[in-house]
């Protein structure tokens, strides 16, 4: 698993936001206008399906950046 691949999967859950707006240090809740409960759920479902890690909204609550989420997945794998 590699962070650039994860960022692509992360970005893939958004319909309006371009891939180049997603960086490891992107504060996804504040920096991505398209962030919503729907995209949040899509990301949790994507992580479950593609990375085999079941996360809840509580698990990612303390994450800020995309890299934080990536590190959380790595720690649970």
């Amino acid at each position, binding site marked *: 698993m590699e962070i650039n691949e994860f960022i692509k999967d992360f970005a893939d859950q958004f319909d309006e936001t371009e891939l180049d707006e997603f960086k490891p240090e992107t504060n996804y809740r504040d920096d991505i206008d398209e962030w919503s409960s729907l995209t949040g759920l899509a990301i949790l*479902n994507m992580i*479950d399906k593609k990375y085999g890690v079941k996360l809840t909204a509580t698990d990612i609550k303390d994450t800020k950046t995309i890299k934080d989420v990536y590190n959380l997945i790595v720690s649970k794998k």
Partner: protein
Amino acid sequence: MRSIFSLTGKTILITGASSGIGKAVAQQCAVAGATCIITARNKSRLKHTLDSLEGEGHQMVIADLVDLSSIERLSSELPKLNGVVCCAGVVETKMLKFSEDDDLQQLFYTNAFSVIRLVRILVQQKLLHKESSIVIISSISGVKCGYLGGSIYGATKGALEGFIKATALELAPQKIRVNTIAPGMIETPLLDDSIIDADQLEADKLRYPMKRYGLPGEVGYAAVYLLSDASCWITGISLLLDGGYTLN
């Protein structure tokens, strides 16, 4: 004078009775005077429910209703019933685009096929007395509204709403009634495993005009009503139990 709402003298089968709604339904049936036969997969938790039931003569049978042979074995151990409450079910929060055939099968087998197969075998084997009552726990989801990630769950509950209509017609000659209860969100252990976090749940509660989720016992009260002779002219309905949620 015996209340028309009493279940005294009635033998009621309750599925999914090891926790949550099923457990509370069994407890309320027992309070109302019923002899309960409770079933679920988990022996120790089901025993816990059994020990919590008021009165004497209740029984428990371990069964996994996803498995047809297990339903057949359950039916072979049953006495003749005056009612059944189908509570066994699972919740899933998965968006349609991520769902797979395994999810479809798991949800439909647990939430819908188990109910249809159980009711079918009770009818085929004449295990229901005349004037019995069949109560199925449905949901507002898939019937009145939906939630994000609930398309397949909603489809299973919609299936149950469809199932009761013709079944109620077919069983009406025997005065057997078939109804659903459609609850909004109920405080059960299923919520603890939710993908949703605690703050989101608290915010969601405020969307209910009554400003809280329902309690399992409140589904129990509705079930007791639909099982009792007080509802003897009610069949084929969905009893909405949602703290006013779908008014908005």
